[in-house]
């Protein structure tokens, strides 16, 4: 039987090699393209009518918009409004990726289960937010690492701690999303394996297989929650980091 980790293998679909670099179009890339298409269709087709009284579809697009706008407003204040397109894109991209990964058909690939992908996104957020901090505050942004009111001998310890705490942001951001997706999908596959191997041993096995099957149903519900929740947490932390860069402590 296939290992429960098989689902995370990146398989090249269209092998492409440029100057010694492997830039093949993989199942991971295909999943990314699929999420971009899903989001584009969802938003543009939903808003095509642009009715004053929205229908169901337009209403759900507006709900996503308002959800992100409220999150950004609450976390970063009115100055954060400028960065709405970025946060909205990030949220919808992660959400679509997680939800596409939950589809039961076609064995879709969950690209957020790869640390390379999540760390790339987190590093982009981290570098962007740091640049915004330096652009809005100049070199005064460096005082972000100096806690107020601490005596100078404590600063020798506190400043390195603050710097490490700042550097740990992209790691915690990427590890959280990646670990959640890997753990959830592996667990689903493991229990799926139980069902298959139990039902292979006869009638008693089939009866016994009902328990892991029931568990999978419950777990799928939980995974749907996690998929949405982690997209929310990713976007929300981006907003909080933006707030730190814009207003400092």
């Amino acid at each position, binding site marked *: 039987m296939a290992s429960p980790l098989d689902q995370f293998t990146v398989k090249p679909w269209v092998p492409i090699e440029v100057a010694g670099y492997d830039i093949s179009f993989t199942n991971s890339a295909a999943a990314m393209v699929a999420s971009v298409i899903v989001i584009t269709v969802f938003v543009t087709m939903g808003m095509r009518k642009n009715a004053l009284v929205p229908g169901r579809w337009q209403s759900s697009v507006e709900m996503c918009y308002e959800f992100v706008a409220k999150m950004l407003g609450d976390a970063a204040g009115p100055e954060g409004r400028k960065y709405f397109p970025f946060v909205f894109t990030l949220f919808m991209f992660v959400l679509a990726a997680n939800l596409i990964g939950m589809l039961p058909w076609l064995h879709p690939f969950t690209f957020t289960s790869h640390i390379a992908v999540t760390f790339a996104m987190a590093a982009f957020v981290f570098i962007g937010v740091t640049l915004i901090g330096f652009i809005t505050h100049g070199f005064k942004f460096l005082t972000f690492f100096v806690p107020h009111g601490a005596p100078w001998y404590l600063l020798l310890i506190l400043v390195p701690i603050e710097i490490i705490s700042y550097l740990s942001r992209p790691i915690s951001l990427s590890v959280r999303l990646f670990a959640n997706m890997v753990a959830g999908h592996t667990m689903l596959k493991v229990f799926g394996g139980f069902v298959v191997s139990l039902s292979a041993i006869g009638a008693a096995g089939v009866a016994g297989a009902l328990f892991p099957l029931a568990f999978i149903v419950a777990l799928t519900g939980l995974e749907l929650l996690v998929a949405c*929740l982690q997209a929310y947490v990713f976007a929300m932390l981006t907003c909080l980091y933006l707030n730190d860069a814009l207003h400092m402590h």
Partner: protein
Amino acid sequence: MADDKKKSEEMKATLDDLNTRVSAAREASKIKEPRGLNEATAYGIATRLVAELVAGILVGVLFGWYLDRLFGTKPWLMIILIMLGAAAGITNVMRAAKQLSPKDVDNKDEEK
């Protein structure tokens, strides 16, 4: 005639109701100050706090390992940086917990 009167009274009642609802909605959309977020589920809070703690230590380990290799000071920088990393992780957890707690409990002066 009695019917009409009843109707207009009903109308007035719904209008009043609408008025209060509209003003409530206006109030709700007014708040634009940054005030943190406190509407996460328990699972979200748990994963968030764990990741903050682990990330601090991980950064300590990674930087310690790299700097040790760079300067050839084998275990020492790593030991120091793991401790600093653990401290940073705990600081991160405390900060995250503070952000998650309801805002009316602690005051504005928590921003140090």
